[in-house]
């Protein structure tokens, strides 16, 4: 069981932030294209950072607590997942903070603030 520790920590991060999407209703998971597009560059850059750090010997991973599935460069899969999980948690947090902050400052119980519908016309004026 010990070897799943790192994996379980990451799973816990996803689990704990899931209510932000499901209960509070932020739309991060539900905007998959924007989500993926936001993750790609940081994932590549910071994984490269990580890989360089591992190669340089700045840090390494305790065999006891990782599954042992490594990618080239002695990179545990958990560490790869880390650079997806943490950013996703951060995005969920940010959207939740924005939503809650907006709700507080608006002080009204309006569920959704839309773009001021002009006489019931919803999205009809394009490039006015």
């Amino acid at each position, binding site marked *: 069981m010990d070897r799943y520790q790192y994996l379980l920590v990451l799973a*816990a991060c996803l689990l704990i932030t899931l209510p932000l999407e499901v209960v509070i209703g932020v739309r991060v998971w539900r905007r998959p294209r924007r989500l993926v597009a936001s993750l790609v560059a940081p994932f590549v850059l910071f994984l490269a950072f990580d890989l360089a750090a591992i190669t340089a010997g700045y840090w390494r991973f305790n065999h006891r607590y990782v599954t042992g599935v490594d990618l080239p460069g002695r990179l545990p899969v958990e560490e790869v997942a880390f650079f997806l999980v943490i950013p996703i948690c951060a995005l969920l947090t940010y959207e939740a903070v924005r939503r809650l902050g907006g709700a507080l400052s608006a002080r009204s119980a309006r569920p959704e603030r839309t773009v001021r519908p002009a006489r019931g016309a919803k999205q009809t004026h394009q490039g006015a």
Partner: protein
Amino acid sequence: MYLLWSLVAVAVVVGLELVWLRTGLFRQGSFWVTIAVAWAFQIPVDGWLTKLSAPIVIYDEHDLSGLRFPWDIPIEDFVFSFALVTMVLLIWVALGRAAPAAGSSGGTDGVADAGRGRDAGAAGAGGAGGAGGAGG
């Protein structure tokens, strides 16, 4: 060196915003609250990963600044996480800003992102908020 390179990462990410993306994220209270929340949750998570009694990640102690706080977390980790989180948020916000016009088939993306106007307000939310008040 980890500290140095983490600071470089922060500089690069901040530069990305100031020079190129210009999302205004750093002027949003929501951003700084998010950073505070992220750091707060980093304490149990990263704390578990780096605890010296049973570390999952083992650092080269000679390379670290030696400051481990709170718990056994190398302070460098907080610099690193700031860079990582900030970069992701910057791109997310930048993409949200660009999205609404595109009349893609999905539609839902654009609608949700139309709330963007709130960003401008969010920055100065503190002062302007109560002006019209007393409606209830």
